[in-house]
């Protein structure tokens, strides 16, 4: 009985911790609200598009060399 009670206590305290988490866990809400996250997305998108175009260009150059053979 004592064990069961303990188990119940711990389970409930677990719920309490979970409930607390959902309210206080810090996320980048303000950043998203203010709209500044778009700047970061724009930056990494530009970087990735740039690298992808670069890879496409290398691919094309390679194709040219392969045709010469």
């Amino acid at each position: 009985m004592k064990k069961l009670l303990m188990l119940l206590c711990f389970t409930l305290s677990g719920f309490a911790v979970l409930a607390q988490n959902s309210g206080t866990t810090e996320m980048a809400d303000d950043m998203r609200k203010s709209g500044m996250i778009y700047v970061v997305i724009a930056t990494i998108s530009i970087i990735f598009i740039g690298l992808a175009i670069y890879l496409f260009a290398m691919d094309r150059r390679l194709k040219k060399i392969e045709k010469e053979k």
Partner: protein
Amino acid sequence: MELKIIYKSWWKILATVLILYTLIAGFLLPVPRLAILHETIRNLYFHVPMWFGMLTVLVISVFFSILFLRTGKEEYDLASVECVNTGLIFYAMGLVTGMVWARFTWGQFWSGDPKQNSAAIAFLLYCAYLVLRNSIDEEQKRAKISAIYNIFAFPIMVVLLFVLPRMTDSLHPGNGGNPAFGRYDLDNNMRMVFYPAMAGWSIFAVWIATVRYRIRLIEHKRNNIDL
């Protein structure tokens, strides 16, 4: 076996679009609010696909090693090597991104966690592959020995990375009673980014490997003419 598909563009465009989508959606879509992790949970979209990309090219590498042993064609050996080379780039990316993520969630860059230690050992296993290759001058012998090594290294790497850490306590999700990003952490919003990221980066890794292979092929032909 002619591999015409490596010269096609559609799947390269597909990979680029998939990754671009995950870069945008990965930051904008909501994620579960979890303590300790906070926004770093978004690393899942970028850290895990590195490992999946590595796994994809290493599987292809084993496939070509087997093909080489069956046919003895040198092109298959070259394809296998370039797949391992590409796999190691993604391996390093996965390891370094994991270390950065660990610094802010586990407390240290390297905490001697079983997953981290296994990953380091498996990395050396593949470095040994490259050293072994470069230490043999005779071409056919080199290709044969490295193909056999590669076929054995792959299952050992899989065991080190995905089996052994799961059998002990580890900080890494998915190990020792520590649930992986599954039912609890990975909600449907995250799946919409996570799966395209896995697919996109895997295809991207294959693309890089094919470019490396094509360069290697030209170098190989030029060397043979010189001889």
